[in-house]
Structures are given as C-alpha cells and as structure tokens.
C-alpha cells in the first residue's frame, strides 16, 4: 500500500482479555517499530523489527506484551490479560532500512480502551 496501515482503528476490551493489534508497513521497508502514546505521555518506544527479527524489545512494559512479524511485512502486537493502564494509542512506524537518516512513517494508530 501507499502508507502504513493499522487495524483496528479502535478497540474496546474488558480488563483481563487478550487483544491483537495489526500493522501493515510500507512495501519494501525492512524496519518496523511499535510505539505507544498514553494520555499525557509522549510517544514511547515498544519494540523494533528488522525483517522478521526483533533485536530490540527493550520498550515492552511487561511480559504480557509480545509481538511478531512474518514475511518481513505484517506485524502483530499482542497484549495478554489487558489492564486499564494499557489504554493508549498504539502506533506503528516503518522505515526503509531503519538507519538514522531514514524517516519513520507512521500509521494511523489503534486506540485501545480497557474497561
């Protein structure tokens, strides 16, 4: 596609349920990043993929969070046993190679609300 796409755009879930968030990066981009933006917080890094590998998972807040990327393309972020503090906008970005001189292009995000 022309840009980064994410689905769903909005997700409301009950505390304790599992959720899956999807990201479709720009075709040909090998680097994929997940970020989270909570109310009153800046954008925080979660995880980075280069191809199908995740060499940097340092931003995942707990072991309830996991992510995978298949075929060097689509990525799924899974949150198990959701908690209210997981409520945030989850943003995905891709860049051509992940180098410091490549722009990161963001998707429209998924707004997650945990009741």
């Amino acid at each position: 596609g022309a840009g980064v796409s994410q689905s769903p755009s909005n997700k409301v879930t009950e505390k304790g349920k599992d959720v899956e968030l999807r990201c479709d990066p720009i075709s040909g981009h090998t680097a994929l990043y997940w970020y989270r933006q909570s109310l009153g917080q800046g954008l925080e890094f979660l995880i980075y993929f280069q191809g199908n590998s995740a060499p940097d998972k340092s931003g995942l807040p707990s072991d309830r969070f996991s992510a995978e990327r298949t075929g060097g393309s689509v990525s799924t972020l899974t949150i198990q046993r959701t908690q209210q503090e997981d409520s945030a906008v989850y943003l995905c970005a891709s860049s051509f190679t992940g180098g410091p001189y490549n722009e990161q292009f963001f998707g429209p995000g998924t707004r997650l609300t945990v009741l």
Partner: protein
Amino acid sequence: EDKVVQSPLSLVVHEGDTVTLNCSYEVTNFRSLLWYKQEKKAPTFLFMLTSSGIEKKSGRLSSILDKKELFSILNITATQTGDSAIYLCAVPGGATNKLIFGTGTLLAVQP
C-alpha cells in the same frame, strides 16, 4: 540517558501570527533530528535535520539545527487554523534508531 525536551508545552496564537517551537536534546552519538506534526493520531513527517545552520523549508514551515548548542527550532509563519496540531521533535537513539520523542508542543491557532 537520551532525552528530548520541547517548549513551550502549549501555545495559543491568532491566524497570521508567527510561532517558534523549540526542541533541545541530549543524545549519545547524534545523527539526525526529526520534526513531526500530529493532528489526530498519525504523526506526519515534516523535516529531518542533520547539519547545523542549514535551514529546511517547506511552504510556511522552516526548521534549523544547532549541533553546538544541541537544539532545533521550528518556525511557522502566517499561521492558519489548519496548523493547529501537536508538533513533535524526535531523535534516533541507540543501535536500532528507535525515536526518542519530546512531549510535544500543542499549538492552537484561533481565527
């Protein structure tokens, strides 16, 4: 620890005004600084700056970097209501170039 600080946190101006948004940074092994505009959810890329003193310009927006004093500014001239947004500054950090963001400047342009 790598850090990006933006000021002001928020700003209210009238159409036609000129605004200057500030971004200071502390980062190991600086390579580039990026500015984004966030209107709803998706930040949209504005500029990437890598060299001091070279202004990047796009229409009414311009930006410049000072690598000696470790800051960048984003200028918007003749503001319009459509410029109302959060403006984010970020630097790539670490070996994986994950973006380290400031908290952003919320700009509101009143008619």
